[in-house]
């Protein structure tokens, strides 16, 4: 039921997430866009679970766990860099290059 539209919506949201990652420069917002991507994928899982059974739904739970873990670590890292740079603007974080 609604498999095609769900997959399409998933694709759109994923693309929007990618776009956000590409155009935004605030590290936190970029990270949020990554979360958006994960959500989009979750939609795919749920939609496909209709066809293939509950495995897809279980996977969504794992993905959420992973997202939570990433959020914790990611935000901690952002905090750490903020202490050094007083900013989370990605364009000011170019100490490493070459």
């Amino acid at each position, binding site marked *: 039921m609604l498999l095609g539209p769900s997959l399409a919506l998933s694709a759109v949201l994923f693309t929007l*997430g990618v776009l956000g990652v590409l155009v935004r420069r605030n590290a936190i917002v970029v990270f949020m866009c990554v979360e958006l991507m994960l959500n989009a994928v979750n939609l795919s899982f749920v939609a496909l679970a209709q066809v293939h059974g509950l495995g897809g739904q279980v996977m969504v739970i794992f993905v959420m766990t992973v997202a939570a873990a990433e959020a914790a670590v990611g935000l901690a890292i952002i905090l750490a860099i903020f202490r050094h740079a007083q900013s989370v603007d990605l364009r000011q974080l170019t100490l490493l290059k070459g």
Partner: protein
Amino acid sequence: MDLVTPVFWVFAGWSVVSAVLCITRRNPISSALWLVSTMFALAGIYVLLDAQFIAAVQVIVYAGAIMVLFLFVIMLLNVGDAPREWRRWPVGLLGVGLAAVLGAQLMMLGGYGRQRLADEFSTQPAPVNPALVFPEGMASAAAVAERGVVGAVAEPLFTAYLIPFEITSVLLLTAVIGAVVLAKKKL
């Protein structure tokens, strides 16, 4: 004409608009809130897709916990609005272009319906009966009917998916250690 399809499209539109606003709002807090909005819309869609438990978790854990963490950090750091920079537009356009191509590629998946999936899935000549090709889908509906929404998901989670489940615990532990190590002012 069932109600499910129009409701789905409403939710879909909601989610897309929210997502667009999420990535375009210059204020991070707005972005975060629009993301929460997207998640709510997705939760609605999950309900439509017979994943009520996931929908609940989505609202409680994702929108409720994770996004609050984001908001918390944004406020802690007191990050201001992103300034407009016209010079960056070409790069942005490149990003938009690439994303558009990627989106177009991924959108091809929208052409999948139950029937097509079944046809491709089966080794029999098309068209085939999806119900026969995907017995697990039927079985899951039966499991929901038998054990309830939560029980149906919980059963495989603690049997077939026991190992991954245990791994997530290690994963969360690692995240905790990492977050503590990195975020603590003084070790």
